[in-house]
């Protein structure tokens, strides 16, 4: 106790004591969050014809969420995050060939494999910052891609792993043509891992990460083991990315080289920037918006759909650094006080 007799005004008492200190209040659930997950569930009932597409959107969303954990909250820039997505996908796919067809343990295996890899490379990689880090993660991603391409006996090379068989979920629900099981299965994973990411961000560990992102030297001078914390969040992020990769293998019944490609890494980054970096819902908004626009724009014009995506992205980067969420927050701020929740 530094001071015992200090008069404590109402401001410093009770659960509202941290009002005005946003970083300490990530744990508070907003009404919009309930709406968001409600909508995700409604898709299952209202849009049954789109469930296969919606499932792939969810998988990507989960992958982008894993990128937001390191980039948005710890400032780790990576152009090779597909490495973990790909490892999760291949490990889970190969495991089914070895007879491990139970889906939940298969997804966990994919996540843990990716996390182990991150635990090995993280302590070396995360000593780097900025451009060197970008280049090294880029190189690692390309090496992994080429390795998978050459190791045809293991990965199937260009042909990929096909013929993946997954046992019914909980031993009961079969994987139907219309992706009903798949959608709810992936939604469940996404929601659970989102809750994990959410509590991490809201925890003292998460607050410390954001301190490192803002000023890592200063953090080490208040006693924070910076590298250790970065490795921890890197491993967690790799786990989430690995599970996302595993889910992709299980729901599409196929693993191709694309899971390791630069496009996958860059695509996730683009979706995150579109939605808003470091806002927790950035990936959760950015990935669906990107993929839905992509889906319909390419139906409208299979050759020029990139114009629309490009225009959207340029607009967001030029006029709204906080992404789509940043735009929404700006609008909310300008509303009269009464209208605010």
């Amino acid at each position, binding site marked *: *106790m*530094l*001071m015992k007799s*200090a008069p*404590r*005004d109402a*401001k*410093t008492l009770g*659960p509202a*004591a*941290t*009002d*005005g*200190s*946003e*970083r*300490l*209040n*990530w*744990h508070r659930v907003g009404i919009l969050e309930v709406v968001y997950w409600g909508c995700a569930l409604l898709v299952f009932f209202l849009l049954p014809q789109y469930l296969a597409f919606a499932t792939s959107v969810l998988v990507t969303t989960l992958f982008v969420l894993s990128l937001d954990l390191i980039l948005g909250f710890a400032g780790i820039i990576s152009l090779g995050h597909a490495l973990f997505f790909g490892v999760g996908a291949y490990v889970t796919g190969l495991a089914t060939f070895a007879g491990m067809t139970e889906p939940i343990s298969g997804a966990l295996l994919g996540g843990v494999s990716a996390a182990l890899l991150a635990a090995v490379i993280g302590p070396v990689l995360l000593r780097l910052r900025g451009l060197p880090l970008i280049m090294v993660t880029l190189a690692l991603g390309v090496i992994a891609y080429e390795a998978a391409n050459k190791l045809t006996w293991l990965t199937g090379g260009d042909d990929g792993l096909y013929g993946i068989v997954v046992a019914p979920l909980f031993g009961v629900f079969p994987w139907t043509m219309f992706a009903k099981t798949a959608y709810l299965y992936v939604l469940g994973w996404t929601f659970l891992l989102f809750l994990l990411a959410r*509590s*991490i961000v*809201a*925890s*003292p*560990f*998460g*607050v*410390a990460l954001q*301190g490192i992102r*803002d*000023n890592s*030297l*200063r*953090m*080490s*001078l*208040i*006693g*924070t*083991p*910076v590298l250790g*914390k970065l490795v921890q969040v890197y491993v967690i992020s790799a786990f989430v990315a690995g599970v996302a990769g595993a889910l992709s293998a299980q729901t599409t019944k196929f693993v191709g080289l694309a899971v390791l490609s630069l496009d996958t890494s860059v695509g996730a980054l683009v979706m995150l920037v579109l939605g808003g970096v470091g806002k927790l819902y950035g990936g959760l908004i950015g990935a669906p918006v990107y993929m839905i626009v992509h889906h319909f724009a390419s139906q409208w014009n299979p050759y020029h759909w990139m114009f629309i995506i490009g225009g959207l992205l340029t607009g967001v980067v030029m006029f709204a650094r906080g992404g789509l969420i940043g735009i929404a927050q700006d609008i909310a701020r300008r509303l009269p006080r009464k209208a605010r929740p």
Partner: protein
Amino acid sequence: MSGIVLSTLRLTKRFGALVVASDIDLELRVGERRALIGPNGAGKTTFVGMLSGTLRPDSGTISLLGRDITGERPDRRVKAGLVRTFQISSLFRNLSVLENVYLAASEHLGAARHMLRPAAHHRDVVERAEEALLSLGLADDMHSKVSEIAYGRQRLVEIAIALCLAPKVLVLDEPAAGIPAAQSRLLLDAIDRLPRDIAILMIEHDMQIVRRFATSVTVFVSGSVLMTASPQEVMSDERVRSVYLGQSGHERFASNVLGA
């Protein structure tokens, strides 16, 4: 040698051919109030950098509580009780005052390892941060962004952060630089009220502050220690007058300090 909390032995740092610190010997006792003065370029900031671990000395050793910490990482030194504040305010400008101090308290209390329970629910951390802020009279600014409060008060936040880390040795790098006199009184009062068992090393240019604060003064010139003595002795030393103040400062020095 009991009672000595921090000592450096022949601490030397070169940048190429330029020797910015040479053979610096310095000892701090429990509860000592030491000022470190010297003209610009005397190596004060380099010395603090070596103490806090952001600069690696070329030779020499640093001991904290009898333990050699010369090769330790900055964060380990903080955990061992050696804490510094910054000359140029290097707080997290976009965070609230409370959040700034929370980070330090959380690290010190070991809460920063926890990943699941929300930050605000770690009441011990929030309370430690609040107490540090209340004891420095910052209660009203607690939820303002650091960038929105007065400069002098930002310096108080630096002190609050240091307090949360329960230092044994506290290095204050020009705590009062650049703040108006009215605000600096607040700051100096706060420094006076710091726990007596903390050894404090304060880098300061202002002789009035030095005289008020310090029981001993070390003078750096060109990267080495010129002398260590009581404030009176240092201020009446002819060498200090000429090297530290130069010719132009002579008169101001005489009227400000000797005449005061």
